[in-house]
């Protein structure tokens, strides 16, 4: 899966977790907490949704890797390429 695909999936799950954020206004460099106002519960819900969708379990120590849509799409694509 390439970064365009992981980006689309990330934004879709973000929209499910935070239906009150208009997806059209989300920029690639927006910080989930500082710019989009997600709290720790929202982040955990997002990580849970990504785990269910992509079977990628993101450890807490990697949360920084998904703090913007751009970083997250790269991170997810990388994790999906890794052999388990």
């Amino acid at each position, binding site marked *: 899966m390439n970064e365009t695909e992981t980006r689309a999936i990330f934004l879709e799950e973000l929209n499910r977790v935070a239906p009150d954020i208009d997806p059209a206004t989300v920029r690639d460099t927006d910080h989930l*907490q500082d710019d989009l106002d997600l709290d720790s*519960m*929202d982040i*955990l819900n997002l990580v849970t949704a990504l785990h269910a969708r992509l079977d990628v379990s993101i450890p807490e120590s990697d949360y920084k890797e998904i703090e913007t849509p751009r970083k997250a799409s790269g991170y997810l694509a990388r994790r999906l390429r890794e052999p388990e």
Partner: protein
Amino acid sequence: MEAGTLVEWLVNPGDTVARGDVVAVVETQKGAIEIEVFEAGTVTELLAEIGQTLPVGAPMARIGDDEETGAEPKPPEEETRPAPKERSAPTPPAEAEAPSEKPAQPRQEPPASAAGASPAARRAAQEAGIDLVQVKGSGPQGAIVLADVEAQMGQATPTSRPAGEGLSDMRQAVAAAMSRSKREIPHFYVSHTVETQPVSEWLAQQNAERPPAERILLGAVLVKAAAMAARQVAALNGHFTEGGFVPSETANIGVVISLRGGGLVAPALADVDKMSLSDVMAGLRDMVTRARSGRLRGSELTRGTLTVSSLGEDGAEGMTGVIFPPQVGLLAVGAPQIRPWVTGAGVEPRQVTTLVLSADHRVCDGRQASRFLVAIQDCLARPEEL
């Protein structure tokens, strides 16, 4: 909250309902609230109409006895009063700021579609005069989100109201409750900075072994610890009513959830002291998710006996909060900070968290407030026992 507008019936006459079933959705200043029924039986009549604005406590439906479905109607049918209540006292007097008890009046209010709508979407629709029924939802389970309302409007929505039009409904609700609190409650404040490094390390270790769905946040630990402390210090856990303070037998901990559309809600989890940490976490997750999509239940907004307000994982180190009436205590939790901390004979950088308890001086004194904070510290020192 003085009134609500009925936007959706989820039952019809003839339906059987059990205690706790959600029967209707009411739009209030605090967003959409699901109304539960407090008795079991068969719905015989719906008294309120969609779009009608009802004062708090007004009867909405009639429920007959379960066994009276036969030919012989037994006499007294009980009226249910499932409208949201600000407090659980049987006859709450009108609040000072209440604009008098108006009789129920039909209003040009948009009835919502069967799927939910986010609070931001409802607010935008109301401001723009858009009927939510005409909006197609693109959110989870067809829920209407802000973008759908904006799409309906054809263009981007004006982000702010014209100057002078006043506060949003949500702001007004917060303003009314907080003004009343500061007017009526003689607040006093006690603070305590607690080392949270051990509990954070314990959680990190636990969570490293768990899939995301089973991870636990520090917030859940704090809510559980607050519940344990509330059970130890009865003078901080309950409601201050007309007759004075009524301590609660259960620790129903309210959690302040900040809504991105503006404003906040503080729904409560019931019996937190008796729940496992995993159950507290699951309960909080569910409540936050529903708060975001505008699907809280009426009882969740009134049953709280003590509230916890957290600044989150990053941010300022301390906050002094305002008590939610009729409660008598509010625990404000600052964002954890790394600070020099005396450990044994040395000083080390450690993670510490500042707790500030706001308490009602009509009910308790500094001694009890201090005992409450020390009880939380004890719980945080032994998280594995929570």
